[in-house]
């Protein structure tokens, strides 16, 4: 072995030794790793248990009082209310009512029996004094059900502080109650699908209305998404064009699992978790886009079907849900090749470099002469 190579090897081994001395236990590296202590685990479990139980109680009370309020005070199918606030003027409230009323009246088709309620609610209302508040905090919630024979869909915004005119104005959409207002109560399987995550696709928005700021930011990101490879497997696979992944992404819905226990055990149908829906939030408009693509008649057939979501989709639209979602994603998001293999460009570059190095080595070897 050449002497100079020995020096390199010695340096390499020394570097490994230094890294091992620093990293292997006992080392300072453990300071950066947070381990769960038994007290932490017990505290976390007790918190989850208590917040879940308290959330169920609070939501039962809200569902009871707000559904009654909605059914009894609705005018032309719309009920609005907020806790008393000095920051809301009568003109501000009227403007809010006009905003939502005109939105509701403009719907085509529309279920005349469906009562839509949009409420701001004090986040401590109905809660037990001195008990940890439920985990849903200020996240908007959706309640769906039937009261005194009237079907209703409610969007509830929990608030800690008094609301203002501008907050009322910003709640000027029907949000997750849009499709209920148009097509009434969905079939049982679609209901279950909505509650298991499909509501995340059902907001009152169209892609064309997306905020320019949001789209500009999305354009700056690869494929308009935050780190597509770090999204859930179904989303990543669907962006990569895989049909089974797209089917899974549609059937599983776009909601994270964290509130499912609460949704399953309480009257809450959906908890809106903010900007965490897949496909760069564009999937918020998925059902609205689906309806626009196929028309209200076919969409109503899907919405009111009693079959499971995949069958209902196929029967209504004559296409697999995954295939439709895949095409939609390719159009709206783009295609991201998944898998561990390097890209074609990287492989080509690597081959070119290897070829050039091999050629240079050959040339040097051929020019070498024995003295």
């Amino acid at each position, binding site marked *: 072995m050449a002497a100079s190579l020995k020096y390199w090897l010695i340096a390499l081994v020394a570097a490994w030794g230094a890294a091992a001395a620093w990293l292997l236990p006992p080392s300072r590296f453990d300071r950066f790793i947070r381990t769960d202590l038994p007290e932490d*685990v017990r505290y976390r479990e007790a918190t989850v248990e208590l917040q879940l139980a308290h959330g169920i109680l609070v939501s039962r009370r809200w569902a009871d009082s707000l559904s009654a309020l909605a059914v009894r005070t609705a005018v032309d199918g719309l009920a609005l209310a907020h806790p008393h606030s000095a920051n809301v003027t009568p003109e501000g409230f009227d403007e809010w009512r006009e905003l939502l009323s005109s939105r509701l009246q403009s719907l085509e088709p529309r279920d005349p029996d469906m009562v839509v309620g949009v409420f701001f609610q004090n986040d401590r209302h109905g809660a037990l004094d001195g008990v940890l508040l439920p985990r849903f905090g200020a996240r908007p919630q959706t309640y769906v*059900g039937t009261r005194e024979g009237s079907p209703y869909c409610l969007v509830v915004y929990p608030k800690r502080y008094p609301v203002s005119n501008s907050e009322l104005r910003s709640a000027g959409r029907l949000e997750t109650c849009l499709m209920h207002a148009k097509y009434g109560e969905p079939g049982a399987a679609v209901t279950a699908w909505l*509650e298991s995550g499909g509501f995340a696709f059902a907001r009152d928005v169209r892609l064309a209305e997306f905020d320019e700021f949001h789209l500009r930011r999305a354009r700056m990101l690869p494929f308009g998404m935050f780190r597509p490879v770090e999204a859930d497997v179904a989303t990543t696979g669907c962006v990569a064009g895989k049909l089974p992944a797209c089917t899974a992404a549609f059937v599983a819905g776009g909601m994270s699992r964290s509130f499912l226990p609460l949704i399953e055990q309480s009257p809450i149908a959906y908890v809106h978790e903010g900007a965490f829906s897949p496909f760069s939030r564009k999937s918020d408009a998925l059902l609205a886009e689906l309806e626009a693509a196929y028309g209200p008649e076919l969409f109503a057939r899907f919405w009111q079907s009693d079959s499971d979501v995949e069958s209902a989709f196929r029967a209504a639209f004559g296409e697999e849900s995954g295939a439709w979602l895949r095409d939609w994603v390719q159009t709206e998001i783009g295609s991201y090749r998944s898998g561990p293999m390097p890209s074609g460009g990287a492989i080509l570059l690597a081959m070119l470099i290897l070829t050039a190095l091999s050629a240079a080595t050959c040339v040097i070897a051929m020019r070498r002469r024995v003295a």
Partner: protein
Amino acid sequence: MSSILQSGVRGLVFVTSLCVVAPTTASAEQSTPDITDEQFIRRIEALVPEYESARAAREARIQALREAERGSVPLDTVQFGPLRVVTLQGNVDRTRALFEDTWNESFSGLEVSPSLARHLFTFQWRARVQRLAFAADPNQQVVAIQLSRARVPTADRAKAEIRDALSRSVLADFPSGSPMSAWLTARGYPRSVDMYRLVALANVGATRQCLSGDAGACGAALGIGFGDPGAEISAWFEPHQRLEMVQRAVASRDHLETDDALVRSCIDLNDIAACDSLLARLDWVSWVPVSDRLRAHALWLAVSVGGSGAWGRALERADAPIVDVLEHVSGLSIQEFLTVWREELIRNRPDARAGFGGRGSRVLAWSLIFMAFAMRSTRWRLA
């Protein structure tokens, strides 16, 4: 461990019991129908002691860890004016010198700051950064200044970091929404050299004319004096910039009513003459197309020019219009103050010329590396 198991089992039993009685359907009538609210309340009340006990156990453990850490690293406290600084025992002299210098150079009038008295600083520099465990008054806000030798190699840089921390700690002296709180920035204490660069590089007529000697233009670069006699607003800012100033003034403050006819003409019809009239009406605008750090720089300069008692005078006029504050704090008329500010900028013009920057040294380093390899080659080897 047994308590964890117990807790887990109880949780499982609770959730299972709910699942058994709670079909996963939407309507209010159908979810957990056969459990009354009273039964639910009793369940929650039964969970509260376990939660409280778990929380107490966790807090006790955290406290025990803190107690164990306390005393493991020998600490000392440096007291200087209203400042209290906790540092490692071996760092006391260096800490005192740095804080004294910084205080005397830039903050000597701040003894009266109420929020500074509520702060406790920890300082570590040129030593391995450690967790400093000490008993702190819960009403005190602890500000950690931890500087690594690699990032902050010189005493001047360390003083700049201390200056940033001190300037941030007095932000709460002024009520939110007051001109003073808007002008002081949380981005730290602005250095005059940096401010000169900002002014020189801004593509705005106001900054160009300010450097040429127009004090009114200096005021415009800070967002004041648009209504003064001799104001040349059209020479200081482009029309789209004036429009944006009005838009932001409407969005950020209540001084301009949105239903004002001039506001509507300016914003809806892009009538720039209307925008100019509106700007002339404001004592200061919340945004100008120049870095907002210039304002903080001007304010700190006013404190420095005002000498001892300047901060007290600023506190006296916490809600006053910013021009009044600048005059009251600096003890100069606004025209005199703007001239002083301009001179401060000019004096700090960096003595630097365009060059290769850092590339020259990098090119040299790589050249030396390749030369070294070349010298190792049999064909090129010397000797």
